[in-house]
């Protein structure tokens, strides 16, 4: 069984940016 997952490059880029943003913000919050 084949499950097609269509990925739009632009949307993927936005998701990656959001992930990066959350990561950086979390790290910033951790700095006392």
């Amino acid at each position: 069984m084949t499950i097609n997952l269509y990925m739009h490059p632009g949307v993927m880029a936005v998701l990656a940016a959001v992930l990066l943003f959350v990561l950086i913000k979390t790290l910033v919050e951790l700095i006392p």
Partner: protein
Amino acid sequence: MKCQSIYNWLCFLVRSWLRRSMQRCSGLQLYSLSASRLQVMKVISGFCLLLFWLLSLLLTSGISSTKAQTDYPTAPPENTSTPAPTSWSPLFGTATPNPTKDYSCPAGTPVGYGQVTPNAAWNSQCQACLPVRTAVWPTQSGTALPTSVATLAPTPTPGGVTEYWLQEKDFDYTTQFNVTSRYDKFFEYPPQGSNGGTGSGTLAGMFLKIDSTTGTNMDIFFVSDSWRIGNTTLQANTTIYQVECDWDYPNCDQYFSSRGIQYTKKGNKDLGPVPFGGGGNRGIGWKGWACCGPTVQSVVGKYGNIWAGTPPEPPSQSICGEVNRGFTPGEPGDVGTLPSPMVGNPTNFNIGGWTIGTGWISELAQLFGIELPTSIYVPQFTFSFTPIKFGMLEMFGVEVDLDIMAFVMAALLAVRILVRS
């Protein structure tokens, strides 16, 4: 300073988002629970680090090139090849492809120029076809505004009736055949069913070229004028126009001299126009064959037509030939075109497809009289990650790039999630 303020603002956003999330989860104020807040931070940062690590693992597995450790390593050859581009194919196979539009300029002024106002799309596509306007600047005693004088392109005068080559030295028919021994093949030109003949008494004919491109082992090829009309052969093997000995075949001279045939020792021979008096309608052909070589490989015959008279005028399909006024509801072509989504090369990941043996468990169960299968099959699932792009939506002369739209919408959604959680 500005960066610092944006940075502070972003910090505030994330902080408030986290705070509200925590309030919703626990119903407590986060200010007084710094320890639990720190705990949440640790969990989130750990999750992000895990994601980052997985991403890096994925990247390195994709680009890693493991080299064996030897005492005398050699430098690997530099890979100078460019990566193959993603080939896109339409998502819906039955979609009608957009016809290729012709934007070539007409010989003179486009029809309707100066009488109707062209629309924006026509203007942008056919600007180069418009007559050049040269502005005449006013002299000291002239008017205040410059007047523009249009210089129109001259209308081409129709030429006289001249002999016309359908495609001069560009052969419009190519036939290739492979031969291993004596072989003959009959070609027909024009093809059956087409009314390509000439009138009675009109000088016409065909030109012919024999290419033995892969014929290093080709020995002999010759052509005869087996003209025919319809299915009736008028002349058969009466005149040998050209004979070639492509390779220095030792028996070539003997073969042809014994038959009184003139030949040349060249690889390619352009026979030039071969005139004949035609009275038929179709089915003019020639006959050629290769022989006497054990491993003759390939023979290419190219042939075209000589046409007497004026060439037929192809109907112009150019958009720029007539000024397009703009959107009219009756014309479906002006409404727009629907986007045609395209998908790229998929990357497949297979999960499953395993056959797990039950082993001693089934044997143990058999002792208690329970029949268990000796193996369990997990069906295979294929996750096909396929890049997709949506294409352009064109309506009323306005083109909307749906890919950019998707990008912007995703960005807006991300901002909204972050801001309003």
